[in-house]
């Protein structure tokens, strides 16, 4: 007997592959997913909610959210959508500017592990700064539609853990609040107010995942940025020859 959720879940894959185009770097293809079970740092659950006064049903909200997903993200992150859009099994690429005003760009991505008419969920790949699970949903409460982002995350490795506590977590909280504000404004809410709930689910660090450093997108991106002038010179010399 088929379950009601058949078709909403991605199929298992041994390694990820993307159909996203336009990203300057693909640091995802060939990697595996790594959710909050496989991260290094403390585990946090962050829930962000916004009331959408006068918006349509939860299904209408989710249809708009999926269709225009990248447009609601703050400019510090570029979302390169897969060809099929937000659909189970699709992999999007991300380019993040972790330090605004600097040339450092972090290349990573997300796998859409679940998508139905009322919610969709991203899971991060190995190497992403956060081993996370991010669910976007909409639901009704007392006749009003609410949009919600719920993140379950651990910093992936010790380097990411330090960055998380030195402002990364705060930046990420602000990121999702801004995303919901942009969505609410697009849907006609003039003065959106985001409710944020942050809970530490596990204070312990998982030292057995210290080796996640080997696949760190942060290290990969730092190396790529540091070697960019050398690559530029090499390409000029080759062109002249």
């Amino acid at each position, binding site marked *: 007997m088929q379950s009601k959720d058949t078709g909403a879940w991605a199929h298992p894959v041994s390694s990820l592959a993307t159909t996203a185009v336009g990203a300057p770097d693909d640091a995802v293809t060939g990697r595996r997913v790594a959710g*909050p*079970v*496989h991260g290094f740092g403390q585990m946090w659950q962050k829930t962000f909610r916004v009331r959408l006064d006068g918006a349509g049903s939860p299904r209408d909200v989710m249809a708009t959210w999926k269709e225009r997903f990248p447009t609601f993200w703050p400019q510090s992150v570029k979302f390169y959508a897969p060809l099929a859009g937000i659909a189970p099994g699709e992999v999007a690429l991300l380019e993040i500017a972790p330090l605004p005003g600097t040339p450092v760009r972090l290349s990573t991505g997300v796998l859409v592990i679940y998508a139905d008419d009322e919610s969709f969920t991203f*899971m991060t790949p190995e190497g992403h700064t956060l081993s996370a699970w991010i669910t976007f949903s909409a639901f009704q409460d007392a006749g009003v539609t609410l949009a919600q982002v719920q993140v379950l995350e651990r910093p992936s490795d010790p380097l990411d853990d330090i960055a998380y506590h030195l402002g990364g977590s705060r930046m990420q909280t602000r990121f999702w609040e801004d995303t919901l504000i942009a969505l609410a404004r697009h849907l006609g809410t003039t003065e959106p107010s985001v409710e944020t709930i942050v809970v530490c689910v596990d204070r312990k660090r998982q030292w057995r995942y210290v080796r996640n450093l080997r696949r760190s997108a942060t290290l990969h991106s730092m190396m790529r940025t540091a070697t960019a002038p050398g690559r530029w010179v090499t390409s000029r010399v080759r062109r002249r020859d």
Partner: protein
Amino acid sequence: MPDPGTRVEVRSTDDPSASVVAIFGDVTSGSEPALMEAFVAAVDGGARTIVLDFAGLEYMNSGGIGLLVTMLVRAKRQGQRLLAVGLSDHYREIFSLIRLDEAIGIHDDANAALAASRA
């Protein structure tokens, strides 16, 4: 989040250190009160091994899986062990997709799970 009407039963076993939590119906993030109440009841009853029986599961979305991940972390923090039985091929695939099968032992039935927990 709306309550999906999840039904949960806590069953004792021959082994006083193990309980079975049988789950029926739909599991979403709205199932948190029902699942957590059952988890606490099992732990309060002295269980160190908790066997989640999914044979009666009809539907589970990503919010429901997120809830299982949270439950797994809480169990580990308290020195308890979570095992899963009664998963259909579809849900076994999902556990494999998200690599939850690396953290929760999967067995065909409660007897096999209890035998494994004693091994």
